């Protein structure tokens, strides 16, 4: 099911650079693993609502108040790229 072209496509979609050796290796491994996932088709889930929140919490809100963050500059400083006028200077997108 999984071939090298698909692995290459997934890697590109995920902006993940891979070497040719990696593509070959991951093709086999992902084929094994994704094939194994297909076992789930055996489970009857008709009428079962999928969940992602396991303790039953829903719509947790907080007051929409302004709070000061004193570490904005330090967070910017984490960037490996240059900072100018409180922005990270990245390559242009267009």
């Amino acid at each position, binding site marked *: 099911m999984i071939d090298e072209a698909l692995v290459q496509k997934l890697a590109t979609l995920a902006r993940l650079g891979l070497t040719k050796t990696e593509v070959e290796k991951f093709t086999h491994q992902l084929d094994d693993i994704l094939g194994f996932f297909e076992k789930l088709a*055996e489970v009857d889930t008709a009428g079962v609502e999928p969940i992602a929140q396991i303790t039953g919490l829903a719509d947790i809100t907080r007051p929409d108040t302004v709070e000061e963050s004193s570490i904005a500059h330090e967070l910017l400083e984490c960037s490996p790229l240059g900072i100018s006028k409180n922005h990270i200077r990245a390559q242009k997108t267009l």
Partner: protein
Amino acid sequence: MNSITSLLNELRSGKTSATEVTKNYLAKIKDSSLNAYITVTEQAALAKAAEFDAAKDFSKPLAGIPIAVKDIVCTKGVKTTAASKMLADFVPPYSATVWEKLENAGAILLGKTNCDEFAMGSSTENSAFGTTKNPHDESRVPGGSSGGSAAAVAGEECVFAIGTDTGGSIRQPANFCGCTGLKVTYGRVSRYGVMAYASSFDTIGPLTNSVADAAAVLEVIAGEDKRDATTPDIAVPAYSKHLEDPIQGKKIGLPKEFFNAVGFDPRIKAACEDAAKLLEKRGAKIVEVSLPLTDYAIPTYYLLVKAEASTNMARYDGIRFGHSETGKDLTESYMASRQAFGDEVKRAIMMGTFTLSSGYVDAYYKKAAAVRAKMKQDYDRAFEQVDALLAPVSPTLPFKFGDKVDDPLQMYLADIFTVTANTVGIPSLAVPTGKIDNLPTGVQIMGKQFDEAGILNLGWHLEQEAGFGN
């Protein structure tokens, strides 16, 4: 081996000093061949110890207690790498809630422990900073992903350590290294400031020398946190006060699908059955229960966590933080920067990209999320019959380096007994019960959501009967 209580008593009575205790641990770390730590914060630890000794105030619950913290927990001003080349030089400008609470309770940070990269793995072999050795046999893995934390506790290189558990990453290394490990209910401990693997599965908890220590640490780190909306406003009980409560009449279920699993070492199975008998001696009632979806635990779990992981890893773009490479345009820069991830992280990103992509999301991601809901119903039904479940932690004894690392599916399959606690959000306590071939073995006790008190109580009795703990 130091327990929190005994060490606090010695510090409070002046029998020893924080500096002396800290120095002893630092010396042990320096002489160690385990590679449990990625970063050792020697100077800061000694400075903190000296402050305690000068003030002579050891009233806080963890005052002067030297500890280790897994290197995916942000510690302000201290390098936090996630055991990844991506964050090899990352120094966070803020602390995770869990470390903030420990620090406020008086704990002294000895350093940051090794783990699988971004907590993805079961052997600590996926670290960019070398493997950690099992203190009981240095040719074997310590388990993972919190392998450095487990090895540091078992190797007496800290009093206790903090780990994280997304699918067994506290319990399995605790089991492999012969220490106690507590995986809490999802949301019991704030995840704020802890690097995310799979956000609806991740939990944070202690690895300790005893059940009493686990209870003492949990009292400090549990509770609601406004910065993590998944921590509910549920009171934190005084876990330590209920450890010795009688367990007469408590019903404990043995999930038959676990005990009949393929590839389960019969010696470990026998050890689990013995542990059940020890609890029976203390008055608990042992019954068999059924968790019919156990066979689907691994595909459900791995499909969902890798999907969540692929989205969490998107933030490592070489722009805001971490490793950065410059290509001819932005896309090439992303691709080159993200090459710094190790194999398991790359696999996770691709698996998640696939199972979440349009055309596959219903058949894969949503299907698994529905099986997860069904699995939760299975566990709810089981907990109508019993107070807790007793189960193995790992189907095998600690394995040798290199045995599984090239076959990711085999590595995943070995997580069969631990992943469901995370899938259904319940707490589970791994307790050592003895040794097989000179290697540690033990069990896990799973409880209802937010019933950490109940499993710690059972764990304490088991530890007493098995002759462990301090």
